[in-house]
């Protein structure tokens, strides 16, 4: 069996009476880069947002980490920590500085776990179950310092460490998006989901963002990218999915799909965008 990181079966999503996704099946291998293309409104964003349950699937299953996260009884927050998401509109936290944006989630989530362990230890002590006490591996200060170091490391990587203490409103779109990407990386995700990461950018800033994504791809990050940048999809993707009307109408390697499209709809779409 292959090493699948995400395995989607018969995924359907309705918004009220509108059927947006009508049965999607796909296995995503560890390290695989998948580009999703297709006409506007065909359900690309909805598909991507189902992968981390930002939209709850109406039916079907999504296996991740050996758990069906489409099942609403699982705690989705635990799994979202391992699935990074990058939005078209960046969505940096406006009330936080750049460094706070990057540190926020790692610090809060790790501190929460630490506090939970402290609580458990407290009750273990209270009931004299000394064998149940787990030694704490870290402190709140340590968590903060580690997160800060990691955040600076990530900022250095994108050459923006001098922006650590400014608020997002002062940044250019390209800077915002690169920070949004490293904010997701700070959680050390196993998969990254990108929803048209360059569509809201001025043309001169598209390159810097695509370069960063390309770097991640080269480092072996598993990623699913919804994009209108066909050149980029061809260059980076291992597999391209062409979506139409809520299904994957055609899929293949970039060479297969771009140079030898089989379906009529694929041909029409490519003719319109290329």
């Amino acid at each position, binding site marked *: 069996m292959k090493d699948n990181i995400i395995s989607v079966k018969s995924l359907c999503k309705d918004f009220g009476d509108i059927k947006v996704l009508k049965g999607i099946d796909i296995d995503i291998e560890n390290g695989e880069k998948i580009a999703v293309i297709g006409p506007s409104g065909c359900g690309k964003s909805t598909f991507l947002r189902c992968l981390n349950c930002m939209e709850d699937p109406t039916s079907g299953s999504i296996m991740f980490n050996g758990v069906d996260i489409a099942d609403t009884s699982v705690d989705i927050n635990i799994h979202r*920590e391992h*699935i990074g998401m990058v939005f078209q509109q960046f969505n940096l936290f*406006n009330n936080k500085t750049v460094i706070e944006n990057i540190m926020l*989630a790692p610090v809060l*989530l790790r501190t929460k776990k630490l506090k939970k362990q402290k609580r458990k230890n407290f009750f273990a002590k209270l009931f004299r179950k000394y064998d149940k006490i787990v030694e704490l591996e870290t402190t709140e200060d340590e968590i903060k310092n580690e997160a800060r170091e990691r955040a600076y490391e990530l900022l250095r990587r994108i050459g923006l460490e001098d922006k650590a203490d400014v*608020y997002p*409103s002062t940044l250019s779109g390209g800077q915002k998006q690169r920070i949004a990407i490293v904010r997701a990386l700070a959680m050390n995700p196993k998969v990254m989901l990108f929803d048209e990461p360059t569509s809201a950018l001025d043309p001169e800033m598209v390159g810097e963002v695509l370069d960063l994504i390309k770097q991640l791809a080269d480092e072996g990050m598993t990623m699913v990218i919804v994009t209108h940048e066909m050149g980029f999809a061809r260059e980076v993707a291992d597999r391209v999915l062409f979506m139409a009307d809520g299904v994957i109408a055609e899929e293949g390697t970039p060479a297969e799909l771009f140079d030898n499209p089989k379906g009529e709809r694929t041909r029409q779409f490519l003719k319109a965008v290329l």
Partner: protein
Amino acid sequence: MSSWNLFYERFITKGGYETVLSGLLATVEIAVLGLAIGILLGTVIAVVKVMPKYNTLPKVLNVICDIYVAFFRGTPMVVQLLIGYYVLFPALGIMMDAIVVATLIFGLNSAAYVSEIMRAGIQSVDPGQLEAARALGLPYKTAMLRIVIPQSIKNILPTLGNEFIVLIKDTSIVSFIAVVDLTKAFRMIGDANYEYVIPYLFLAAVYLVIVFAITMGIRAMERRLKKSER
């Protein structure tokens, strides 16, 4: 004696200023604590209103909040005060100072209004902010508390300031349940000689000064908030 001299005698020589000061304190206390309760409870109600409602619990909470808001917005505050002081708390067997009852009622009443303000504030924040927080794995509550609500407070600060001014002025009705507030204090000075003109003019002036000070304070806060996030 002229009415001015009468007032001067009452206010200074006979210690009327002490009553006025303690009345001022009562007014400020009721309004400040009332607003604090209002903001806390109002935020909870607002979050219940904007929460996604897939499950039964949020739906039930939503109905409760609707009834709550309808009651406090649909009845005069004097009536709420009277019910609280003479009916509700005695029926529950709780003995409380009138000023405590007044503070509580002001808080509960203000929560109904603040919840509407806060809801508009939350809805004015770009939904992408909540999405980004949730996508990082933060629970709904944490995301609201750390990201959405702080941003909405900034948006609604002027409206919250108005609510505070309304509360300050509304405290003038608490003498209905025997609290000595600013209004009552000046009336007592007038009662002494049946000379009301100067005490009531002074009373109005004091309210004006308080409201003016609050307005200035709110403006300063807004400026500071604008300066950050730069």
